[in-house]
């Protein structure tokens, strides 16, 4: 890329052409305050905080949406600029409720931080806070439009990145607000991915908080509380406790859960190994004897499932019927495990610690989520809710024991199970086992590196035995359309499907970038989180799901054959077409 020379506060720097002033300034060791710009998203210029002066230009310009150019001279800070920024900030605060103490973003809020940095000590303007009630109808996220600063991040994410179009800007001027089109969010196309809450700078959209429920259960002597943690949680949670992104804190999390009072701690990775057993069997079966049912499409992401049910239900026939890993752990806990230990399953309180807001919806999605005869997973908490529980509990996270083990048998996982948390991971794990199912022997190398990465759509043709397997991976729902339309076109024209196997994860990066994860994620952080999972995989002696001895035992003792009758009963689910909007 071409570089240009420019001056920022009289310091000469080089920056790449097209880069915005906000980023370029960092090279001159200058921080320009910003509020509406998110590194994941294109600039909208909504807040007006990042204004700077350009030599020779009559007006101030926005650093976030002005590209650098050769010879440009930028002044980022002088009394006038800071004064204007302060007044803009005061304006934003005048349209915002003073409710930090009871707010979901207290302490992590970008607006609160700016107000603190700018030392706002008085309210110059009369408040003009809108009176709009909150909306929690998805049971996954809560919208609090009064706190919205109209930065537009959620809208960009929901419309452009996710292509769901649940959220929109309605009205205009001072009445501008975020809302679905004339209905509640629960009646809208929202797929509950939580990406809006992940990107919101303030407390206007946040996870539907269910920590109270868990606290109550933990103090109920009648209940047998069990927790499981998702793969992606272990590499992101540390960000809240001062660890670099990607640090693997599996042991500390197990230990923390025990301290909180959970009687058993399982790992969703075990469920992932089960998912692979079933999904790889489905794949091998369709690949070898039912090619008309290809491509096989993965389904462990409930937002993707919901999206497909609403927008692409003609794809249902290609869907894997296998449940997601944490649902499987839930079902097995209340059947297999309960029987083994002789616990009354109705007294078990199954809590999933997930990177995901959508899992809150998934646990009651269909009748199959009650396969054990009761609700298989009782509560799904996001990483962020879990962090708050830890902070309340007095546990000093950094002092926890990294060597803590999960409970057997639902806590023992293979390397294949853990990479589920990143985009491409499900595909890779499934290919490892599918190779075995198709050829009868394990793959020479377990690394299917060609399908890793963060590009929105990745395709690769793998050679397995004498077979050629065409795979595609998409993450971020906005990238799905391309793949699906290729499949659809081939079907309409009677051609062979362009792919044999497709993995879709709703969130950018997969679950490591999930809607319930620690805030301020960008691609650099996603990469580190993903690397944390891959290195966990590499450190495992067993890296193939079907080689996990506890999995083998589970099938021997309880499930029988993959796709067999018992497996069908407990591990599989079904899909139905749903209207985009409830009428």
């Amino acid at each position: 890329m071409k570089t240009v020379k420019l001056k920022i506060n009289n310091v000469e720097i080089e920056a790449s052409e097209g880069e915005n002033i906000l980023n370029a300034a960092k090279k001159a060791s200058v921080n320009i305050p910003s509020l509406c710009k998110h590194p994941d998203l294109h600039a909208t210029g909504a807040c007006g905080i990042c204004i700077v002066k350009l030599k020779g230009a009559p007006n101030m310009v926005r650093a976030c949406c002005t590209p650098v150019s050769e010879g440009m001279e930028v002044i980022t800070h002088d009394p006038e600029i800071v004064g204007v920024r302060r007044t803009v900030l005061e304006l934003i605060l005048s349209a915002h409720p003073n409710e930090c103490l009871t707010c979901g973003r207290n302490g992590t809020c970008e607006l609160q931080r700016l107000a603190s940095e700018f030392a706002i000590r008085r309210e110059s303007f009369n408040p003009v806070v809108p009176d709009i009630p909150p909306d929690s109808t998805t049971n996954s996220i809560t919208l609090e439009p009064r706190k919205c600063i109209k930065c537009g991040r959620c809208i960009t994410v929901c419309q452009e990145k996710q292509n769901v179009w649940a959220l929109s800007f309605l009205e205009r001027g001072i009445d501008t607000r975020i809302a679905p089109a004339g209905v509640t969010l629960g009646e809208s196309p929202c797929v509950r991915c939580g990406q809006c809450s992940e990107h919101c700078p303030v407390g206007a959209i946040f996870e539907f908080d269910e920590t109270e429920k868990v606290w109550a259960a933990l103090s109920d002597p009648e209940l047998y509380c069990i927790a499981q943690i998702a793969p992606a949680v272990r590499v992101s949670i540390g960000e809240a406790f001062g660890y670099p992104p990607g640090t693997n804190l599996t042991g500390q999390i197990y230990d923390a859960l025990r301290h909180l009072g959970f009687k058993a701690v399982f790992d969703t990775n075990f469920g992932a190994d089960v998912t692979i057993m079933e999904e790889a069997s489905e794949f091998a079966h369709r690949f070898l004897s039912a090619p008309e049912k290809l491509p096989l499409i993965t389904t462990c992401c409930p937002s993707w499932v919901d999206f497909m049910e609403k927008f692409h239900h003609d794809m249902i026939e290609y869907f894997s019927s296998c449940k997601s890993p944490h649902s499987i752990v839930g079902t097995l806990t209340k059947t297999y495990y309960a029987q083994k230990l002789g616990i009354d399953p109705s007294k078990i309180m199954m809590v999933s610690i997930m990177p995901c807001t959508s899992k809150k919806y998934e646990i009651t999605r269909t009748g199959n989520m009650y396969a054990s005869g009761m609700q298989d997973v009782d509560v799904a908490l996001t990483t962020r809710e879990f962090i708050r529980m830890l902070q309340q509990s007095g546990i000093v996270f950094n002092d926890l024991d990294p060597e803590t083990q999960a409970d057997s048998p639902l806590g023992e996982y293979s390397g294949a199970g853990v990479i589920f948390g990143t985009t491409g991971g499900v595909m890779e794990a499934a290919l490892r086992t599918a190779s075995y199912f198709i050829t009868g022997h394990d793959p020479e190398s377990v690394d299917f590196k060609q399908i890793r990465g963060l590009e929105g759509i990745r395709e690769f043709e793998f050679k397995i035995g004498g077979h050629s397997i065409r795979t595609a991976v998409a993450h971020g729902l906005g990238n799905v359309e391309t793949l699906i339309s290729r499949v659809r076109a081939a079907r309409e024209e009677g051609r062979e499907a362009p792919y044999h196997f497709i993995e879709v994860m709703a969130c950018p990066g997969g679950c490591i970038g999930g809607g319930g994860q620690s805030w301020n994620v960008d691609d650099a952080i996603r990469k580190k989180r993903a690397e944390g999972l891959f290195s966990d995989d590499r450190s495992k002696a067993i890296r193939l799901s079907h080689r996990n001895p506890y999995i083998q035992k589970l099938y021997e003792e309880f499930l029988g054959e993959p796709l067999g009758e018992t497996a069908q009963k407990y591990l599989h689910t079904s899909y139905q077409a749903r209207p985009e909007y409830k009428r």
Partner: protein
Amino acid sequence: MQLTEFDKIVEAAKAKSAAFKCNLYCCYSTGCVSSGCGDVVKAVQEALVSHGCDKVVRIVKTGCMGLCSHGPLMRVEVEGQKPVLYSEIRPLVARLIIAEHIVPALSLEKGADFNVPDFLSGFVLPLDIPFFSKQMKIVLANTGHIDPELIDDYLARGGYQALKKVLTEMTPQQVVEEVLTSGLRGRGGGGYPTGLKWKNAAPSQGAEKFVICNGDEGDPGAYMDRSVLEGDPQCVIEGMLIAAYAIGATSGWFYIRTEYPLAVDRVEKAIKQARKAGFLGKNIFGTKFSFDCDIRLGAGAFVCGEETALIASIEGRRGTPHPRPPYPSQKGLWGMPSCVNNVETLANVPHILMKGGAWYASIGTPESRGTKVFALTGKVKHSGLIEVPMGMTLRTIIEEIGGGPSTGKKIKAVQTGGPSGGVIPSEFLDTPVCYDQLKKLGSIMGSGGMIVLDEDDNMVDIAAFYLDFTADESCGQCSPCRIGGRQLLELLKKVKSGKGSMDDLALIKRLSLTMKKASLCGLGQTAPNPVLSTLKYFENEYLERIKN
């Protein structure tokens, strides 16, 4: 259309209008329609038939003649006789005019002028009053003289000759040069040199390239563009064609506010007729140049006059402005290079190409060439639509053309530039109107609204009125304008109601500066102008409200 055909249809058009011995030009624009010109025209028609002279007398339904406050208007032109303008006509009067003026005048011999009988002279508006004589018409040259719904009328008055010249004799670069020489600046408010805009747009590459005619005109109290579109739509189409040729555009769009149904209707008809005649379509005049255009409507949003918001609106989105770069000339409508020009700007173009850039540049002042159309309203006797050469003083416009105050009270100030502009106190009335002089005084030329204020008008009220407008029209995208506009309005209302303090006044100033500096688009950046300019000249009126 081939060249030879063109000459033929022009001849035919001229012959057609020459066939009539008498033309009755009846204003049929929004103002006069509201005043009842429909009934008048019907009465005229019936009277002509009953007098048996409907074959030699033609009724021409024209665009706005500019004096709507005196409508309905009808100008009588009998071959060889001085024209007579009747005002405030009722159907009964119309019948009298036919019987007592037209019929006798038709039988008068050549060279003799008809004397209007006394009982009709009360309705006559002398055509030599300053309202008419001080004006200079380029943009409005045809308005009031042609039926805008008939392309033949336009052709008979020299229409499409400029296009012919451009397509057959000039290269696109030469056209740009000619417009550069003319010194024409955008009439939509920004005043950016049109030739320069075209020069920048010409090299942009894209699968398509667009010319967009900005007919949004949301400024309350301004209706210049509407009158041009209603009165001479073919001229704007011709201007658009020339612009397209100059920059290499492939198609064009008219963006017109939906509140202008008559303008929309006229442009629609004009496009159809131009297409039928071959001025729009493939290989125009047998050259390689092909071009067509269509109309898209606004839906009640002032901010859609801003070009990036306008583009968003055509694309079917909310009309929120887009930060620049990219400029529309690089990435505009549907991502293609686009050039947005105001209606009045385009209407100047055929005249410039016909008579030459140097001719145009000889009119007006060195920085502001040519003429400007204004909507003169407020407390003046003759409120209406006028066109004057740049550099005429405000005093000439208000006192001579406008006929002075209508209320008998003293004129206090004149507001120009609408909600983005400011007030100019009466002591500066000798200022010539041109972009730079008005800016020096803290106002702007804007698109051409000119509102005369008298002693009854309070400046705090005026500022609050404009802020109410801009706050209401803010797109809501950026916080300095969305919240700032509302807070500024609240503060002004507080002062207006006598509850304000000196602290509020200081806050008004601080907030105005912040909006100017930190707003994303021109709306928010200029919204405080009415406040700042009234404060500059009439701070005492603020202080009075605060003291009481």
